[in-house]
């Protein structure tokens, strides 16, 4: 095993150029907390971002922050918090779910498009990612986007790189748009609702003018005996008073909610964000992305095919976190067959490496899109040296 730790972008370029001829593929490493995502790769060398750290630009009044890829996420979040700001997309921390330790980095947040419950309102990481620098598979330093929010200059390679899990290049610097932290956060929690009733409540709330920032449902047995349906409001304090009152009235048919603030609220949403209720088990964990009202239909269809399946909903029902007995194939066929008629897709987030090597981790794509995907990979990385096969076999 060779570990490359460049301390400058130029060094990273030189390292990539040096391995192109040898054809030795590279894994890309940051804090290592998300190394178990995707298909297992067979690589002898790792190119690490650990030597590329530090915030390079922070302009609170312009709502923009840039950092080298290996900068700990915690450092970015702490720096923003000092000026009353935050990353809008509330990135998930995979450590509890994947049983990893180490320090999540800002580069991996971009590379994995790592988002959290706020995604339903504020968008995913890719929506806030406005600029990147990366080293492509030719050993060239490339930039795309920049430090301004509105930019339609040329092709938006920023989006393409967000969520590409290092298969297109080695990120050296990322730039995000940030937002002010809300003055106050209030969680409303209803108890005892069925999945269908809960998703109906969440859809009504998300279609109201009162602007919930997060909307989740935890069925019975997921973290508590009783089902809990959660809405999170964020705003100036007086607005929260008004909006919560109006929402409770609007949703009166579902009963009166409990009000949760402070540390209890923080921990509750951290559990949802990080899927902590599935931490420490040996179940296979899936992440389904569907239209919100399709969420309960998807889980009902899966439950009929996969005994022992457990789940909860985020994004008003549009994100389903699903735990199934690991078995031989983590119930991949059953799950994908169940959701196909509903639209959407499934990603295997946690399973033993042997299963992740044998079943498609990411949703298989139709032939023309697979062709485009392979072409995009080749356009960035013609020798196929970055994370070979991490997303799709042969890509």
């Amino acid at each position: 095993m060779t570990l490359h730790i460049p301390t400058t972008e130029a060094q990273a370029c030189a390292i990539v150029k040096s391995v192109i001829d040898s054809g030795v593929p590279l894994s890309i490493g940051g804090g290592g907390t998300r190394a178990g995502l995707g298909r297992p790769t067979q690589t002898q060398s790792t190119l690490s971002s650990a030597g590329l750290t530090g915030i390079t630009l922070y302009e609170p009044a312009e709502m923009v922050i840039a950092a080298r890829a290996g900068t700990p996420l915690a450092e970015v979040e702490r720096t923003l918090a000092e000026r009353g700001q935050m990353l809008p997309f509330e990135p998930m921390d995979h450590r509890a779910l994947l049983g990893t330790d180490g320090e999540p980095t800002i580069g991996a947040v971009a590379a994995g498009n790592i988002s959290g419950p706020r995604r339903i309102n504020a968008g995913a990481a890719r929506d806030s990612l406005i600029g990147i620098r990366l080293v492509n598979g030719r050993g060239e330093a490339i930039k795309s986007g920049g430090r301004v929010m509105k930019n339609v200059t040329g092709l938006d390679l920023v989006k393409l790189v967000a969520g590409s899990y290092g298969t297109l290049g080695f990120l050296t610097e990322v730039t995000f748009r940030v937002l002010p932290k809300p003055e106050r956060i209030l969680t409303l929690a209803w108890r005892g609702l069925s999945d269908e009733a809960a998703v109906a409540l969440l859809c009504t709330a998300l279609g109201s003018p009162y602007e919930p920032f997060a909307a989740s449902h935890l069925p019975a047995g997921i973290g508590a005996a009783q089902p809990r349906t959660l809405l999170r409001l964020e705003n100036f304090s007086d607005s929260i008073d008004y909006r919560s009152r109006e929402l409770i009235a609007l949703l009166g048919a579902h009963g009166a909610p409990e009000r949760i603030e402070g540390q209890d609220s923080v921990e509750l949403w951290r559990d949802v964000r990080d899927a902590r209720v599935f931490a420490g088990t040996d179940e296979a964990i899936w992440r389904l992305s569907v239209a919100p009202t399709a969420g309960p239909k998807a889980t009902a269809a899966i439950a009929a095919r996969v005994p022992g399946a457990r789940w909860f909903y985020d994004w008003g029902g549009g994100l389903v976190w699903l735990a199934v007995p690991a078995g031989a194939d983590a119930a991949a066929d059953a799950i994908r067959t169940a959701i196909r008629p509903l639209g959407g897709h499934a990603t295997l987030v946690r399973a033993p490496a042997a299963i992740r090597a044998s079943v498609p981790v990411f949703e298989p794509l139709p032939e023309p899109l697979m062709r485009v995907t392979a072409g995009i990979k080749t356009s960035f990385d013609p020798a196929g040296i970055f994370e070979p096969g991490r997303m799709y076999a042969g890509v």
Partner: protein
Amino acid sequence: MSAIAFPIPDQSILARREEIVAGLATLVAPEALITAEDERRPYETDALTAYRRLPLAVVLPSTTAEVAAVLKFCGEQGVPVVPRGAGTSLAGGAIPQEDAVVIGVSKMNRILSIDYANRTAKVQAGVTNLAVTGEVSAEGFFYAPDPSSQLACSIGGNIGMNSGGAHCLKYGVTTNNVLGVTMVLLDGSIVEVGGAHLDAAGYDILGLINGSEGQLGIITEATVRILRAAEGARPVLFGFPTSEQAGAAVAAIIGAGIIPVAMEFMDKPAIEICEAFAHAGYPMDVEALLIIEVEGSDTEMDAQLARIVAIAREHGVKTVKESKSAMEAAAIWKGRKSAFGATGRIADYICMDGTIPTGQLPYVLRRMAEIVKGYGLRVANVFHAGDGNLHPLILYNCNDPVEAQKAEDAGMDILKLCVEVGGCLTGEHGVGIEKRDLMTFQFNPEDLNQQMRVRAVFDQRWLLNPAKVFPLEGRVAA
């Protein structure tokens, strides 16, 4: 103006025109194929009217299958294709060339379905931006991206240009509001990218399509997010003695944790032009105007405005004018949104579109004035202050070729200035033909080559909108 080069038409294609037209005629209904010269004439330009080229033929299909058949045919014949929405591009994104077939989606203008529970609408690409909001407004919903041309521009064109507008400070641009598309590739394959769910599978090809200016394929349908409108919205006018004070107030508002739904800036020449046209009650004794719009219930808007007004006072605001009625609110926005039209009444102008870091605003305003004055011309500025997207309007006389060239040169100098201070060449209009040759100023050869290699994955032979976005020389394959 004639400074921007067009590719030399391929004589072998021109020579085969009758054959190509005959081939197209077998693929679409007779009324969908436009071949007569006078009927092709309306398609020779878009909103960058200084440039025009008569296309080989125009096809206006009614279905995705027809688009696929036409695209496949053109691909096989090696004929360039110029996709067209409503033709409102200000950057020349839909201007054809003599050897190209225009494929317009204007007949595909149906709203296919609305799903309020999931807050999505499925529409055909030729639906206008405002028609989407029109369809859902009775239920209290709207489609967020709001380019000034929203009455006329199409969703397909919006996706092609990743269009924005005054309210993107809070709601984002097109790429943040599109969940899925049906797109036809050059070989005639029909692909679905994304859908009614968030975060499509695989590489973010949807993100790549947004803003790709018709170079990757032709979009025929889209699933867009619709949002529930706030209970109320109120624009307020703030007049400042200097541009610096207005700029500092914008920074302080954001620094205080307030994100208004829009923050628009106008300088004195723009104020005068817009007031003369719209009679919106703009103050005439100030150097800079901010229109700040807040949303929410009446009490919430009062509270947020109180915070904003206090900050504005700390920065020397001279006039604060709240809209007291829906009519007054509409007048305030009418003044701003008619800036381009109102300017057109007093002079010819070119509208530039660059973005800068907002902290550079005072410097850039000063330098822009110097640049334009250096060419002996005048400039009026309206722009989105919250996100630094500038729209200098350079006034000139189009009947004077020397002055026209000066206006174009001044515009290019201003765009270079935007890049120099850390911004970019275009914030919402796109590159088109207009800024194509400046791309090498913002990007180095490696950056540009990587973009072109990605482009070539979809179109090896550069047949799709070929003379746009990238410099004509230096094309690379995948």
